[in-house]
């Protein structure tokens, strides 16, 4: 095959060592102009380190970076941007109080005499870029008033202010709804048509197959190879990532269901959700599926006492409950594994044991003091039971991988012996290998008698773990599916608001 053009971006033999770890071991990667190149790997495989080398945050110990035909040294992020390498990060870094235009040209505002900002040029230039992105807001809009998806568009607009040779998208769809994703994909396609090389980092297989031309995989800091997306499949990529096969078939649902653990009748809460009715039995996993903003998280927060409903009743073991605070919910036997474990679920600076025993440390005292032994016993028990990989309980939780962090949160609640366990987005930001471990765990917990509610935005996940699935659209339950009558098609229809008979 002849290659008429040279790659837009090429990394050759990159080595980066940190004390005790070889984070990158001879990694090579090339991105052609007009190509969408997926970079995959489990968390900790070296993707972020590689991107930091590319962005000039780290300097490689060995290896070269080429932009076009010239070898370059990226001395800092600004330098990297100046050389045409632009990053769209998962976490947005925008000044919310400023206008879109000011954010797009932040640090490079056009000036006229006496250092005054040339607002006219600024707005004109910004609007030109925004027109390319086909967005609904203009240069003067305050960024804080935009949705997350639109804020991401501002980030992309920022990338377009320079003559970008390559754009790196790092988990761009993590917080987007399906509709917003489509807009993002269009923008990526446009960039591609303009001959920009694109590196697309994502954990989501559907996106990889929909969007990308080639897939490169990293594992433990080593380059595992590149495949043409058209020639490969999910299993092959997963195997390259984790070095073994992944089981994503339906779990067998053959255990016995117990009594009704939780029942919700006609529950409404402002504009978040209306007339919600459902039941969960002991031993059952009830999935909640819907778009972001459909009201699922709000229902979970109500059950956990973080929100008060306007009307309706919550029955726990047949008894009516008024849950006014998380501490009341915990006492009643309802636990919540929140959507974002880092900001809502864990005290990242504390060690594993203290995080796990946080809600029950009150009951673990000897005299006025906390009993070390009781705490360690609980930690050891759930570390073994949930297979939490940590060097010891003294390890700071912030240093664990996403999967192990999530297991700490789950262990925290299991040790309280709840009746109902609500898990909001059980595997968000968790690598593929640990995902299936979490799924298996949820099934096992159900089998051992817990009533479990799983809220997920990932269809394969909700299909995989649930006995029944509640489909929500814009604050209402459209339909409750059983394992027998659910299909991908009717589930998608339901969460898009199409009611079937």
């Amino acid at each position, binding site marked *: 095959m002849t290659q008429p053009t040279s790659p837009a971006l090429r990394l050759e033999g990159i080595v980066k060592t940190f004390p005790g770890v070889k984070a990158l071991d001879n990694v090579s990667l090339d991105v052609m102009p007009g190509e969408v190149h997926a970079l995959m790997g489990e968390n900790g495989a070296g993707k972020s*380190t590689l991107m930091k080398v590319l962005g000039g945050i780290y300097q490689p110990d060995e290896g070269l970076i080429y932009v076009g035909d010239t070898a370059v040294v990226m001395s800092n992020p600004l330098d990297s941007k100046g050389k045409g390498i632009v990053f769209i990060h998962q976490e947005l870094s925008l000044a919310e109080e400023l206008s879109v235009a000011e954010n797009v040209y932040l640090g490079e505002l056009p000036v006229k005499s006496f250092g005054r900002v040339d607002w006219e040029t600024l707005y004109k230039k910004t609007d030109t870029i925004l027109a390319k992105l086909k967005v609904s807001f203009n240069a003067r809009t305050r960024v804080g008033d935009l949705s997350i998806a639109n804020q991401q568009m501002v980030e992309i607009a920022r990338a377009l202010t320079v003559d970008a040779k390559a754009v790196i998208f790092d988990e761009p769809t993590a917080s987007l709804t399906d509709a917003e994703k489509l807009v993002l994909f269009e923008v990526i396609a446009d960039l591609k048509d303009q001959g920009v090389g694109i590196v697309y980092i994502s954990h989501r297989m559907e996106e990889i197959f929909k969007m990308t031309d080639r897939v490169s995989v990293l594992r433990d800091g080593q380059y595992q190879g590149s495949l043409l997306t058209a020639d490969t499949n999910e299993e092959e990529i997963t195997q390259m990532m984790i070095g073994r096969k992944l089981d994503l078939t339906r779990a067998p649902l053959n255990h016995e269901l117990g009594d009704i653990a939780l029942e919700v009748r006609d529950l409404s809460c402002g504009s978040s959700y209306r007339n919600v009715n459902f039941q969960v039995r002991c031993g059952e996993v009830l999935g909640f599926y819907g778009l972001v903003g459909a009201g699922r998280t709000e229902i979970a927060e109500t059950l956990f006492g973080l929100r008060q409903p306007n009307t309706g009743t919550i029955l726990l073991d047949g008894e009516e409950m008024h849950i006014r605070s998380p501490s009341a919910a915990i006492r009643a036997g309802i636990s919540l594994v929140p959507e974002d474990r880092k900001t*809502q679920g864990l005290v990242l600076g*504390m060690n594993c044991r203290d995080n796990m025993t946080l*809600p029950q440390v009150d009951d673990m005292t000897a005299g006025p*003091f906390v009993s070390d032994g009781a705490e360690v016993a609980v930690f050891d028990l759930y570390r073994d039971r949930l297979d939490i990989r940590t060097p010891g309980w003294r390890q700071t939780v912030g240093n664990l991988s996403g999967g192990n962090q999530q297991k700490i949160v789950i262990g925290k609640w299991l040790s309280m012996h709840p009746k109902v366990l609500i898990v909001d987005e059980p595997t968000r930001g968790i690598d593929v290998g640990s995902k299936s471990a979490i799924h298996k765990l949820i099934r096992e917990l159900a089998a051992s008698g817990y009533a479990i509610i799983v809220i997920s935005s990932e269809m394969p996940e909700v299909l995989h773990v649930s006995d029944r699935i509640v489909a929500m659209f814009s604050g209402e339950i459209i339909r409750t599916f059983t394992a027998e009558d659910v299909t991908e098609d009717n589930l998608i229809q339901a969460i898009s608001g199409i009611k079937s008979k």
Partner: protein
Amino acid sequence: MISDFIKRNLSTSAIWLFIIFELLFFSIAGHYLSFSDGEFMDLGNMLLLLQQSAPIGIIAVGMTLIMVNGNIDLSVGAVFAIAGIVMLDSMTWGMFSGLGDWVIIVSWILALAAGALLGAINGLIVWKTGVDAFIVTLGSMLGYRGLVFMFNGENPTSHLNWTLVDFAEAQFLGFNTATWFLAGSVLVIWLVTRYTVHGRNAYAIGNNRTAAVNAGIRVGPHMVINFVIIGFLAALSAVVFYSGSGSVNPNDGQLYELWVITAVVLGGTKLAGGSGSVIGTLGGVIAIQLLRKGLGYIGADTSTVNLVIGLILIVVLFLDRQLNVKGAQELKV
């Protein structure tokens, strides 16, 4: 493992290294510069230093708890003055005239209760309104100071009770009363932060408030308790100090809040909350006092002392930031 341990304790141990440095520096520099005959590291001098550290130190112990929580209390100086007035003035009240020297106990209890009450007011406002503790206590700092002036105008409030003075100047095992109170406060709050549920929750709340709420911790009442504790300790500091001096000037305790915060921060507690230790704070308090005394010893005047302490605070925080940024980056790998 060992390097891990050092890293974890670096922010606390750094202040003690700094103290050793100060001691050596002033001993050597004093040899050439000092006009006084005595050695700097003289036992009597060191004991005096601990005694003089007590008023700021006792409050700083409470401030550590508040700052680990992610809050701050700017009203401690005013609470200090009010508690002093309550103690000295109540000893002259007619209704206690029959008590003899027992009035001391009653006055102490009243003063300590006043401090706890003022702290509780701060805490309740922070809890119930959700307004930032900085703003709430900035307001109460002005308000409480207003109360001090309303009580006796510009005039000092004085009362001398010789039994009380004897108590304040007493020594036990070589240490002065004030030093014992400082040591006691450090010990109690250290036990609280290190070994109790309350202490555990304090770190959890400062580190991640949302996660603490989600773990069922009642954050509001927890914070109120901490404000009560610091109010109580500010009053305890006043009680110890004014037992000896017997006279409260309405401007007393001004800028105490800033000295206290300086000591706590020097001791390695983060302004953002979630980490810090009382032992570090004790180091911070002693470091400042050493600096004051040492600079005086080699002949510097008060304004120079303030300048140097200010510079050192900034340098220390800069170094701390450098160390922590490096640490944080290594962790991300």
